[in-house]
């Protein structure tokens, strides 16, 4: 019990509280309205209540969630479900008290379960989410939202018509360094946002070991189009979500190229993608992912006319840094009647050198960043916080604002990116997949 008190929840409380202090509660909730449902005050209100949750899909990501659930005091994992015995056994070993199922529909019949956590292959997300909502469960589903555009729309419509809470694991929305950085961007730190560059590079085949050949497509589901949208849905969905979050808008035109460049091992999904999304105002999101070279790592760069924020690293760079802008400070001083030292002395200033950019952390003290190499998850990347928020919703019944909408937007953009690459043409955002949340 002592152990649990040190877990996710204290982090969550501290996190939201500090953000509230920094920005004034109202400002916090205007840029991140989804945090309104999981404030420390609301968490305190639930007392010792526990959400009874079940996990559907007990592979590596599901087991990652089990570890996080252990640190959430208001969560109790009561059931597990998987069709693959090896994964189900591994998960059961982690929480022997949970009841095991091989058919999720049987699990959903258990009225004592408040919410389900879905960590299955992508093609099952929509069906299980819809069934679980219909069964009256609160739902936390892994990203992306669904395998097809129509499935996304169906999930979105179901969400509009349910009183149940629905979350998709858009963990960046609950990652302190992202929240703070987006606040800094909206406060004008980097001036006008003029473009975005996201990429995710790894050097690995993305394969899992297959004990027997007939399991290939099931275990390596990420590599086959029937189950997976490839790099776009598995990696791009997180990064594109960040872009729409920052922009507050959805791109109108999509074009790209992709192919299987290196891992020609029978897979169907591209191992190299490069998609350009253009907003109506002309700004561009440049998205790239390649899994046969990791030099560039994972980055989400928001480019402003006065600076750059690398969200994934939690740092920002200014086009005109203190070393450069001391004279501006001095001018401001003499105009406003202030006398103070200007930070302008230094070894000779030289123009237009990239190295002049000094990284500034968006948060005080130490914080974790992901190198993007793990295909399971990273410690303290927000996944634990969003899961805790979901468990809180299972108790309070309060929906998290905008999470489903953001997941819908990013997944649709991923799927449209795939379509643009496959068809080799520039797509215009289709009318039938627009939702009221979207601004263009």
């Amino acid at each position: 019990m002592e152990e649990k008190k040190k877990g996710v929840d204290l982090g969550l409380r501290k996190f939201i509280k500090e953000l509230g202090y920094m920005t004034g509660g109202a400002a916090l909730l205007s840029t991140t309205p989804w945090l309104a449902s999981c404030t420390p005050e609301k968490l305190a209100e639930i007392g010792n209540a526990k959400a009874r949750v079940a996990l559907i899909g007990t592979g590596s990501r599901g087991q990652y969630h089990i570890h996080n659930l252990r640190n959430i005091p208001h969560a109790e994992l009561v059931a597990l479900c998987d069709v693959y015995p090896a994964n189900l056994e591994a998960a059961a070993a982690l929480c022997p008290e949970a009841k095991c199922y091989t058919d999720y529909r049987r699990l959903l019949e258990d009225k004592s379960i408040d919410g389900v956590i879905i960590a299955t292959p992508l093609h099952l997300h929509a069906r299980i989410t819809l069934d679980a909502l219909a069964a009256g469960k609160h739902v936390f589903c892994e990203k992306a939202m669904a395998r097809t555009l129509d499935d996304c729309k169906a999930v979105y419509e179901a969400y509009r018509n349910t009183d149940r809470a629905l979350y998709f694991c858009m963990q960046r929305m609950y990652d302190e360094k992202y929240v703070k950085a987006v606040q800094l961007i909206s406060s004008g730190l980097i001036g006008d946002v003029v473009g975005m560059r996201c990429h995710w590079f790894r050097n690995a085949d993305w394969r899992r070991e297959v004990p027997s050949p007939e399991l290939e497509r099931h275990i390596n589901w990420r590599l086959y189009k029937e189950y997976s949208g490839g790099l776009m849905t598995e990696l791009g969905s997180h990064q594109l979500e960040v872009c729409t979050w920052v922009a507050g808008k959805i791109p109108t035109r999509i074009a790209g190229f992709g192919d299987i460049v290196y891992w020609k091992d029978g897979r169907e999904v591209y191992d190299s993608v490069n998609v350009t999304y253009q907003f109506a105002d002309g700004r561009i999101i440049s998205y790239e992912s390649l899994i046969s070279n990791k030099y560039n790592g994972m980055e989400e760069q928001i480019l402003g006319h006065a600076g750059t924020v690398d969200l994934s690293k939690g740092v920002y760079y200014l086009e005109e840094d203190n070393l450069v802008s001391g004279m501006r400070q001095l001018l401001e001083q003499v105009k406003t009647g202030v006398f103070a030292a200007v930070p302008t002395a230094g070894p000779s200033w030289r123009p237009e050198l990239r190295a002049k950019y000094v990284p500034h952390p968006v948060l005080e003290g130490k914080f974790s960043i992901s190198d993007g190499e793990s295909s399971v998850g990273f410690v303290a990347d927000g996944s634990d916080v969003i899961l805790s928020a979901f468990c809180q919703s299972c108790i309070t019944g309060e929906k998290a604002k905008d999470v489903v909408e953001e997941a819908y937007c990013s997944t649709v953009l991923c799927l449209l990116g795939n379509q643009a690459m496959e068809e080799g043409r520039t797509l215009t955002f289709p009318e039938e997949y627009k939702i009221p949340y979207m601004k263009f």
Partner: protein
Amino acid sequence: MNSETEYIAEGRIFHGFVPHAMGTKLDLLAVGTEAAAAEALWTAFCAELSALEAALNRFDPRSEVARFNASESKAGFPLSPAVQRLLDLSREFWFRTEGLFDVTRGHGMDLEEAGATLDFGGIAKGYALALLRDRLAGTGIASAFVNFGDSAILGLGTHPYGDCWKVSLPNPYGGSQVAEFSLKDRALSVSGNTPGYTGHIIDPRTGRANVERKLVAVTGPDPLEAEVLSTALMLADKGQRLRLRRAFPDCESEIYTV
């Protein structure tokens, strides 16, 4: 030479800015002046700075220094009065710094020696600051702040709301500031390496670049002395440092490991 100016009528403050000069930029803030007088001073100074740069830029083959460096017979090369003046000053500083400040790039001011070439990069900005200081005095401007590329700074008189001009030195490697200086009729020169620009100070004795994470800051009434001393202290050993400080009694200096 491109430049921008603005005049803040309230406070009678003139701001002149040259975005590109001698590989960096220059700002002048002159306090308590009429716009017309400051504009006239600025125009004249920009012309002088432009001519100086045209003469001293050793990377421009048309420049006087480049032509001198390329010439077969250096003794017979006719130097302009400005360059001759700089060369004379440099010879004096070479002597006072025990050879640590050497515009002949390791040839001991012997221009007849094979391979000897001139490089005024370590003195040109200080020289330009001295020219501007004299022009300001001639125009009767007692309070001004001049920043030539952050490394050569001049504070004349006082800030309009203070008793001097205050400048701080951030650590180029990140972190907190290294020092703060109060300038009143004093120049500040900073030498050192930065993460993006290391190894640009060459030891004339060895020909090797200094790559230490070190900053030298020198203040003094004369921007030329400050600039020469800050470069020399980058290269000096312990004994030389003591002697250099005695040789430049009007200057105060500090060496920071960063």
